C-alpha cells in the first residue's frame, strides 16, 4: 500500500487483539430503553415546552400536481384573510437559492414546475389540524407544458427542454448529438480489440426504476429565532450542511445558526428516525425558518407522506447497455458499458458512482465506460438512497456478469472467483489507487460454504428442487462498493470530569444504524473502560459538537476515528498529572481495564476514577481525522439466496439469504449484524415491488378531484409497497468478515449502505435459476414479469441449454 496509515497510537490493528467492548456481542444499543418505552423524541414529537416556548405554529407545503407547468397565478388572499401565514417565491429573499448538486434552486417554484410534487407555496397555522384548511384556501393556476419522463426520450432534440441545451445537467448535447459535458468517460486498455478477439461476446441492456426511501418517519424540522439567532431542530443526517445553507440563505454568520438532530443534547441527538440518505438538506429547513421569522414564534414542519415521497429525494433510475467479452476458459477480457441516469427535475450530475462498481469489482484489462445524467420531469431529485447509485449499479453489473457466466456455462461462483478483484494487492484501476483492505475472496468463500452452494446449485436454469408447482432456485452475486469519499477532516472531543464521567462530543448523528452506541464504544475502548455506564454522548448539534461531516456513505464509523485522536490529546493533558501520583514516566502510562497503569511495572496503577479525581476541573481532548486521499476505500462482500416461485400463482418467496460482508473489524456487534439483516430484507422491496409511478398519459382532460395527467400515482404506503413482515426470509444468515482496514478505528471499515447493495440481484439471480434461466432486465420484478418468465420457461423447456449457445465471434 502506498500510503502509510496514520496512527493515533491507540489504534489496535492486531487481527487477534482482545477487546473489552469492541465486537462484544453483549453490548446493547444505548437508546433502546427510551425507544421501547416511547420516551424518545423524534422531530414531530417536539412541542413548544421542549424548547422553552409557550406556542408553536405548524407548516405545510402546497405542491404542484403537474410534471411540467408554468405557474400563471397564485392567490393566497383567502388563506391570509383566515389568519394563516403564507409564503410564495416572491416573499423570499431575492437570489437566495437553496440546494445541493448541480442545480441550486429557490425553495419554492419561481415560475416553472419541473416535476410533480415541487413546492409552490408554504403556509403556517396555529394548530396542526388547520394546515390542510390553510392549504386548501390557496388557489394556483398553471399552464401545463409538455413533459418527458424517460431519459432516452429526454435526450432527443424534440424533447421539452428542462436543462438548457440538451437536458444534461452541467452540459449539453452538441449539434452532432455528442454530449459536450456533464458526462463521464473512462477508458482502460483496448476494448474494441479485446471484444473482437473474445471467444464469447454478450450484449444486453438492464435498467432500474425510481424508488423512494419511504422511511416510516418523514423528514421535518422545528425552527425558531432568539433575536438574530436561529435554531433548527431538524431530522437531518448532515447538521453541518444545513447550518451552512441556512447561514448563506439568511446571510448571517454560521455561528448564529444552531442545527441539531432532533432536540440535541445528551443522547437525544440521534433521534431522526431512519435516514437512508434522504435526510440531508431540504427546503423545509429554510421555509420553516422564514415562517418562524415572519410569525415570531417557533414553526414545526413535518412532511406528509405525499410531500415526503415526491418533494424530497429519490433513488434515480439507472440503465446500462453492456458488451462483455470473455475467453472460453472464463477469463473476462472486455467490459464496455454505457450508463444513463435519469436524475429527475433537479438532480445533479449523478451516475458515475455506479460505473465505479464495475471497474472495481472485476479485474479486467480492457474497460470503457460512458455515463450520462439526464434531467426529466419524472420526479424531484435523484440522490442518495442507501448508497449513491451503487444499489442500482450492482443490479446492472451482476445481472450482466451472471448472464455472461451462463453463456460460458460456467458455475457463477467460479466465474467470480476467477475474475473478481481480490487479495493480494487490489488496486482501483483508473486512478491506480491501492485498496485499504478487501474481504475477497474470503467473503465469497465463507458465504458459499455457509449457504451450501455446492449441494444446491444444479446448473444454469436447473432449479435445486421442484415440488408440484413450486420451484426453488439459487443464485449469488458479489459486491464491491465505494464507501463515501474523503470529506473535510472529521473531528470530535472527549471530556473527563473529576468524578470520572466521560462525555463524548461528536457531530455525527444516528439514524438507527447504531452510531450512538458505536461512538461512545470506540472512545470507551480507547480509554480502557470495560463498561459504557459512565460515558455520556452529545451528538450532532452544531452548538456543542464540531464538524464530523455527514452521517452517510457508510463512513460514520470510519469518521469517528477522530475519537482515538481525541483520547490521545486527553492523555497528553492527563497522564503527566497521573504520572506524578504514580511516580512514573507519563510516556510509559497506558489505559487498561478501568485503570491507568505503568507499562514498565503494570502493578503500579490507579483506577480510572481515582485518576479522574486527581483533576481539579474537567479536561477535554480534541481529535482530528482525515481519511487518506490516495487510497481506494471499498466495502466488499458476497450474497447467496434461495428463492421459491409458485408457477401457478407467480408468487415469489425468499427462503434464505446468506450474506458475508467485510466489516474490517466489527465494533458494535449487534448493531452491525442487525443492519446486515435489515438491509437485506429492504432489498426484497427493491427487487420485487418498489417503484414510484407517474400517470404516463399526456394532455388528457383532468378528472375533477384527481391530479392531472402526468402526476403521481402512488405516493403512499398503500400503493408503494415496502416489505412487510410477511416478506422477510425464513432464514437470514449474516457473516461479518474481519478484514482489518488500517485507516479505520481498530481496523473497522463501516457498514450501512452495503447492507442493501446487491441484495436485489442475489434474489433475482435465484429466481432466474428457478425459472429455467430466464433473465430479468428491469427492477422491480413485478408479478407480471414473473408470469412472463413462467410462460417463457414453459415454451422453452430446455431454457437454460437453449440460451447457453453463446454469441461467438
Amino acid at each position: 500500500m502506498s500510503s502509510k496509515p496514520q496512527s493515533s497510537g491507540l489504534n489496535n490493528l492486531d487481527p487477534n487483539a482482545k477487546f473489552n467492548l469492541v465486537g462484544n456481542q453483549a453490548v446493547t444499543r444505548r437508546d433502546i430503553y427510551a425507544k421501547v418505552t416511547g420516551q424518545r423524541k423524534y422531530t414531530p414529537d417536539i412541542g413548544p415546552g421542549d424548547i422553552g416556548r409557550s406556542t408553536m405554529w405548524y407548516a405545510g407545503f402546497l405542491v404542484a400536481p403537474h410534471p411540467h407547468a408554468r405557474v400563471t397565478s397564485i392567490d393566497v388572499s383567502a388563506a391570509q384573510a383566515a389568519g394563516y401565514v403564507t409564503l410564495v417565491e416572491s416573499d423570499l429573499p431575492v437570489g437566495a437559492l437553496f440546494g445541493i448538486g448541480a442545480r441550486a434552486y429557490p425553495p419554492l417554484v419561481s415560475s416553472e414546475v419541473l416535476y410533480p410534487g415541487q413546492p409552490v407555496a408554504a403556509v403556517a397555522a396555529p394548530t396542526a389540524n388547520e394546515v390542510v384548511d390553510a392549504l386548501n384556501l390557496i388557489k394556483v393556476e398553471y399552464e401545463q407544458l409538455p413533459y418527458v419522463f424517460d431519459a432516452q426520450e429526454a435526450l432527443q432534440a424534440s424533447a421539452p427542454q428542462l436543462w438548457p441545451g440538451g437536458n444534461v445537467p452541467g452540459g449539453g448535447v452538441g449539434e452532432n448529438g455528442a454530449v459536450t459535458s456533464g458526462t463521464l468517460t473512462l477508458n482502460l486498455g483496448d476494448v474494441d480489440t479485446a471484444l473482437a478477439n473474445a471467444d464469447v461476446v454478450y450484449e444486453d441492456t438492464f435498467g432500474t426504476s425510481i424508488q423512494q426511501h419511504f422511511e416510516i418517519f418523514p423528514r421535518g424540522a422545528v425552527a425558531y429565532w432568539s433575536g438574530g439567532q436561529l435554531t433548527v431542530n431538524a431530522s437531518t443526517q448532515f447538521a453541518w450542511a444545513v447550518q451552512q445553507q441556512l447561514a448563506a440563505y439568511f446571510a448571517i454568520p454560521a455561528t448564529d445558526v444552531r442545527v441539531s438532530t432532533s432536540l440535541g443534547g445528551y443522547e437525544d441527538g440521534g433521534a431522526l428516525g431512519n435516514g437512508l440518505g434522504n435526510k440531508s438538506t431540504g427546503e423545509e429547513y429554510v421555509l420553516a425558518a422564514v415562517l418562524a421569522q415572519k410569525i415570531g414564534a417557533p414553526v414545526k414542519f413535518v412532511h406528509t407522506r405525499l410531500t415526503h415521497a415526491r418533494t424530497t429525494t429519490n433513488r434515480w433510475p439507472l440503465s446500462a447497455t453492456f458488451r462483455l467479452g470473455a475467453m472460453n476458459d472464463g477469463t473476462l477480457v472486455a467490459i464496455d458499458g454505457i450508463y444513463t441516469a435519469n436524475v429527475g427535475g433537479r438532480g445533479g450530475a449523478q451516475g458515475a458512482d455506479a460505473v465505479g462498481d464495475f471497474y472495481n469489482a472485476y479485474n479486467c484489462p480492457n474497460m470503457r465506460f460512458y455515463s450520462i445524467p439526464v434531467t426529466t420531469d419524472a420526479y424531484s431529485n435523484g440522490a442518495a438512497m442507501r448508497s449513491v447509485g451503487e444499489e442500482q449499479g450492482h443490479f446492472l453489473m451482476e445481472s450482466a456478469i451472471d448472464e455472461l457466466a451462463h453463456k460460458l456455462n460456467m458455475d457463477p461462483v467460479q466465474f467470480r472467483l476467477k475474475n473478481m478483484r481480490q487479495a493480494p494487492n487490489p488496486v482501483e484501476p483508473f486512478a491506480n489507487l491501492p485498496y485499504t483492505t478487501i474481504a475477497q475472496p474470503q467473503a465469497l468463500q465463507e458465504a458459499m460454504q455457509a449457504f451450501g452452494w455446492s449441494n444446491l446449485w444444479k446448473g444454469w436454469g436447473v432449479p435445486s428442487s421442484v415440488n408440484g408447482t413450486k420451484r426453488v432456485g439459487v443464485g449469488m452475486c458479489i459486491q464491491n462498493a465505494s464507501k463515501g469519499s474523503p470529506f473535510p477532516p472529521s473531528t470530535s472531543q472527549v471530556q473527563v470530569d473529576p468524578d470520572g464521567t466521560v462525555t463524548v462530543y461528536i457531530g455525527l448523528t444516528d439514524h438507527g444504524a447504531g452510531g450512538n452506541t458505536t461512538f461512545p464504544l470506540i472512545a470507551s475502548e480507547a480509554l480502557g473502560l470495560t463498561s459504557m455506564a459512565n460515558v455520556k454522548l452529545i451528538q450532532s448539534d452544531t452548538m456543542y459538537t464540531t464538524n464530523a461531516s455527514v452521517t452517510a456513505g457508510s463512513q460514520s464509523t470510519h469518521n469517528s476515528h477522530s475519537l482515538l485522536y481525541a483520547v490521545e490529546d486527553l492523555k497528553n493533558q492527563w497522564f503527566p498529572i497521573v504520572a506524578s501520583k504514580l511516580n512514573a514516566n507519563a510516556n510509559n502510562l497506558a489505559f487498561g481495564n478501568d485503570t491507568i497503569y505503568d507499562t514498565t511495572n503494570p502493578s503500579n496503577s490507579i483506577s480510572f476514577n481515582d485518576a479522574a479525581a486527581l483533576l481539579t476541573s474537567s479536561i477535554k481532548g480534541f481529535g482530528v481525522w482525515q481519511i487518506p486521499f490516495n487510497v481506494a476505500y471499498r466495502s466488499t462482500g458476497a450474497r447467496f439466496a434461495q428463492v421459491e416461485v409458485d408457477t401457478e400463482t407467480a408468487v415469489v418467496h425468499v427462503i434464505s439469504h446468506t450474506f458475508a460482508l467485510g466489516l474490517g473489524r466489527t465494533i458494535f456487534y449487534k448493531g452491525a449484524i442487525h443492519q446486515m439483516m435489515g438491509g437485506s430484507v429492504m432489498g426484497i422491496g427493491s427487487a420485487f415491488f418498489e417503484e414510484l409511478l407517474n400517470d404516463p398519459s399526456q394532455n388528457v382532460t383532468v378528472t375533477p378531484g384527481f391530479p392531472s395527467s402526468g402526476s403521481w400515482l402512488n405516493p403512499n404506503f398503500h400503493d408503494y409497497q415496502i416489505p412487510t413482515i410477511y416478506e422477510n426470509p425464513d432464514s437470514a444468515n449474516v457473516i461479518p468478515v474481519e478484514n482489518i482496514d488500517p485507516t479505520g478505528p481498530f481496523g473497522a471499515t463501516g457498514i450501512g449502505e452495503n447492507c442493501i447493495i446487491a441484495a436485489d440481484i442475489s434474489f433475482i439471480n435465484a429466481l432466474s435459476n428457478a425459472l429455467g434461466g430466464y433473465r430479468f432486465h428491469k427492477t422491480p420484478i413485478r408479478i407480471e414479469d414473473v408470469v412472463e418468465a413462467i410462460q417463457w420457461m414453459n415454451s422453452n423447456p430446455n431454457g437454460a441449454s437453449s440460451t447457453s449457445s453463446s454469441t461467438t465471434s
Partner: protein
Amino acid sequence: MRVQMEINGIRTESNTDATTLLSDFIREEAGLTGTHAGCDTSNCGACTVLLDGRVVKSCTVLAVQAAGRKVTTIEGLGDANDLSPVQYAFWKKHGLQCGFCTPGMIVSAYALLQRNPDPDEEEIRNALAGNLCRCTGYVKIVESVRYAAKLTREGKTPFRAAARRRKEGEIHGPPGESL
C-alpha cells in the same frame, strides 16, 4: 367540543374539533408522543394503541369515537418503574433500530400475547402485518415477540426496573438473565 377519555388510566379531558384524530388527541392533548404517525393512509401502524383493550390504528379513529373509553399507549404498557415483557423482549433481542415503528410494534405484539400467549410464527406475522418497519427487516422483531411470549408464559413479569436505574448502554443490558 368537550371530549373525555381515560388514557393509561388517567382521565384526560379537552376541547377538541370533531375532526381531530385519536392519534392527534393522544399526541397533542395528552402530550404522549410515543404514539407516532408515519402515514396518512392507515398503512404504517406507527400509531397503534389499544382502545378498550383492542388494537386500533389511532389515526383511523376520531377522538370523539374514543370518548368515555379506555386508551392504552406505549407509555401505559409498563408503569413508571416496570417494563412489560414485550418491551423487555424488544430491548433484550434488539427488536428495533431507528425505533420509530417500535411503539406500534410493541402495542400490536402486546395485544397478541394478551389473547394468545403461545402464538406460532404465522400468528405473530399476522398480528404484526399492519405494522411497517423500514430498518430491521423484521427478523429481530419476530424473535422479540417469540421471546416475549416465552416470558409471558413463564409468568416472568413485571420487570422491575432496576432496568430503568441501570444506565442505558451498560454492557450487561437489562437485568434478568445474563446476556
